[in-house]
């Protein structure tokens, strides 16, 4: 079963994304912010990371930069799932190494389609 790490400081968002992915047949791991995600990535292997942008402790862009520094995670697909739609922010995410950018609110079916597309 493919494993997805969801990083969002909102409990409800983690729950909604988690439920959608579980229904789609994925195993889900949750993290409250970028720092929490990095901690979890030291002990578990995931196939995909879905992260929010604005979070306490460590935001999504910083998380991506840190993930990309690790050779084992260099090519791991990372999707941004955020309310932020500014083109400059998207560019920043792309430059940091994001694989894709989804704007909240998300459509469950579209999320599953996007996840299936980016997973190798």
């Amino acid at each position, binding site marked *: 079963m493919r494993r997805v790490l969801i990083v*969002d400081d909102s*409990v*409800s*968002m983690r729950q909604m994304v988690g*439920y959608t992915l579980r229904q789609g047949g994925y195993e889900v791991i949750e993290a409250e912010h970028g720092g929490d995600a990095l901690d979890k990535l030291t002990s578990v292997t995931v196939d995909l990371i879905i992260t929010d942008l*604005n979070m*306490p402790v460590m935001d999504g862009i910083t998380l991506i930069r840190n993930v990309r520094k690790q050779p084992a995670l260099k090519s791991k697909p990372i999707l941004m799932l955020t309310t932020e739609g500014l083109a400059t922010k998207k560019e920043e995410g792309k430059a940091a190494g994001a694989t894709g950018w989804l704007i909240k*609110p998300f459509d*469950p079916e579209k999320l599953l389609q996007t996840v299936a597309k980016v997973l190798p």
Partner: protein
Amino acid sequence: MNSSSQTQPQEALPSLPLDDVAKQGPGAETELARYLPHLTRMSAQLRQTSTQIESSVVGVCQSFQGIAERASSTVSRTTGFLGGQGKGASSKQSFEGLIQNCSGTLVKILNTTEEAGEVSRRAIERIRQMDKASQSISGALVKLEQIAHENKMLAMNARIEAAHAGIHGAGFAVVAVEVVSQTERAREVTAQVAGLIANLRALAGSTLEDLRRTNEQDSKRLEGCRCEVDESLRDMKNAHGEMEQMLTGITEEGARLASDIGAAVRGLQFQDRTSQQIAHVVEDLDTLHTKLTARFGGLAAGDSVANEGFSAYTMQEEREVAGIGGAEAAAGDVELF
């Protein structure tokens, strides 16, 4: 959701005209400083509201997930039961399979009964053949009777001729007497055999009649059973068809429910946006509070204004957040006066 790392809302705000307040004189500054605690209260109120919204949305979301899972499980179990296609099919035989098995068993029973009828028909035929053979034996016995009669007549003639021959025919007369005696014994045996055959034929005739009658009744019963089985199987297939239609309806309903839940989940994401907006407002209020406290905070010296012009904070939790004392909490959810 959190906006602590965002700077855009702050940049968008106009600069605070603090110098204008200062120009109004120390009285205005002091007056302004007395309102500072209200900014803190408003921030706390907004944070609490945001937390409450999130908690409610999480609860609603969990309920939706429970509904979706139950609906999915129901459809899966029904599919498994009826068609053997779903998850439940592995542990239980499908309804369609049961009908097929039942149909197979009934056909086997009918065939076995039919085979028994066939055996009975063959037995009737054999008894008929045995009767014919008995008839032939009876014919043969009649011939034996005639032969015996002729032998008796011959012996009588031999005795007459022996009498004519006198002393010379005495030995011949003894043989003739013996022939008559043997012929009589043969006739007795023939009569016994004829009697036995007659008994045998009578027995065969009654058995034949019994078998014929039973076979006829069995054939009628078998035909009746075949009709009933056909009708029952037709009814079961119809019932299965109706249940399949019902299942299709349930499956379609499940798909619609899943779609509705998807839409509801999408709708519930308003909370994330709302929380962010509230967080931005709280952040601005905190910034405003920090700036005003830095400039005028020293003037207030704990002499804050009362609640005139501000919300009444009617809920206990609001009063707790706002730090307004003196109002006792109600003993419970219900209070009679």
